[in-house]
């Protein structure tokens, strides 16, 4: 009977923490990418009037 077999409901928990760490790293990269360095910003601003 399916009622009497053990089901570990936290089986995916370990994988969840790995996923969390991966996404935290990716998130830091994304935020670093978004807050672009000043140099890049000014050169882009120079480029803008031309386009």
């Amino acid at each position, binding site marked *: 009977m399916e009622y009497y077999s053990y089901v570990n409901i936290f089986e*995916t928990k370990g994988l*969840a923490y790995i996923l969390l760490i991966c*996404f935290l790293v990716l*998130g830091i990269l*994304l935020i670093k990418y*978004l807050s*672009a360095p000043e140099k890049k910003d000014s050169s*882009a601003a120079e*480029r*803008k009037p031309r386009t």
Partner: protein
Amino acid sequence: MNNAAVFTGELRSFLKFFLQELKPRGKWLTPFNVISIPTIILGLIILYFRFTEGLGSVTNLSQQFPFGFWIGFDVMTGVALAGGAYVICFVVYVMRLEKYHCIVKVTVLNGLLAYVFYSGALVLDLGRPWHIINPIIGNSFGYNSVLFLVSWHFLLYMIVLFVEFSPTIAEWAHWEKLRKFLTGLTLGAVIIGITLSILHQSGVGAMFLMAKPKIHPLWYSEYIPLLYFVSSIFAGLSMIIFEGSISHKVFSNLIGEKTHHSHDEIVLGLAKAAAITMFVYYFFLAFIFMHGDKWKFINTPWGYWYLVEVIGFVLIPCFMFAYAVRNRRLGVIRVAAAMAIFGVVLNRQNICLIAFNWYAENRYYPSWQEIVVTLMVVFVEIWVFRWIVTRMSVFSKE
């Protein structure tokens, strides 16, 4: 007695002013009017049949698909896309970022009209709409219902948005004292409004919690409320970007020089926030996917459709936003905003219509009448929006 005479005098002069303002301005035979007027007339004819012959006469609703396009598009999607109002209010009034102040009024107006019209469209879908006051007046409070919560929060939030927008109306009608009083209410209204928004945005998702056996497992999870809330943030931000770029073309004569220039910076800021929110949303989706052990569904047609939504209209627009912010490409931001909006529309349609009763043999497709009525609602909203922005100082004149 003297007071009364003054009051009636005031009222009369205001009515005169109001009638004056009702008249159209400029030429009325524009391409938009040429399309919208026949649509609205056709929509009204359809609604006549809907209210005399019943819902079945104009819609494709069935016993298996009780929620159709009017709920799935107008209400579910309209509410998500109107999320920009509470996000911007949070940024400007709670976080006090003055940079975004010049878009507050127009965003709040958009939110107010979206709520009035899209949750107003709910009335069209109700079978017995004359009982709509029942959950409000208290003769039968169904506290146990998610919909009870949602309907109350819609109502309260509409009032709150009206209070937030009311100083502009008072300014237009030259009621200086009232305007000052109403401006004082803004912070309180904003704080209540954000709270109500968090709850009803997630509440709209919570409506599907009990439909567990009917929604495809790739879309169903107990976290639907959280997903609806997070997606309403970037849906709202994308909508502000999208609407803003249209408004700045269409109503460019109403917008001041300084605001025109600062608009690029505002769009970049919003896009940055949207990129981060979408990234968080994508993480939530991945986490729920993994936690629910949904790998077995991926290699099916439903799985591919799910990937179209999640990769094509969440992850890709997220990266487009990030790329565009870094390289200051405003065109890319607009495309990304349109894609993100489409992604949210797709998500709501999937949960409400497409992956709902996914095993059903007779699928639901909206009838042409349902689409016309939806277009009618959108057009009427744009009409009212246009009427207001051309008369009240909604856009910043600076």
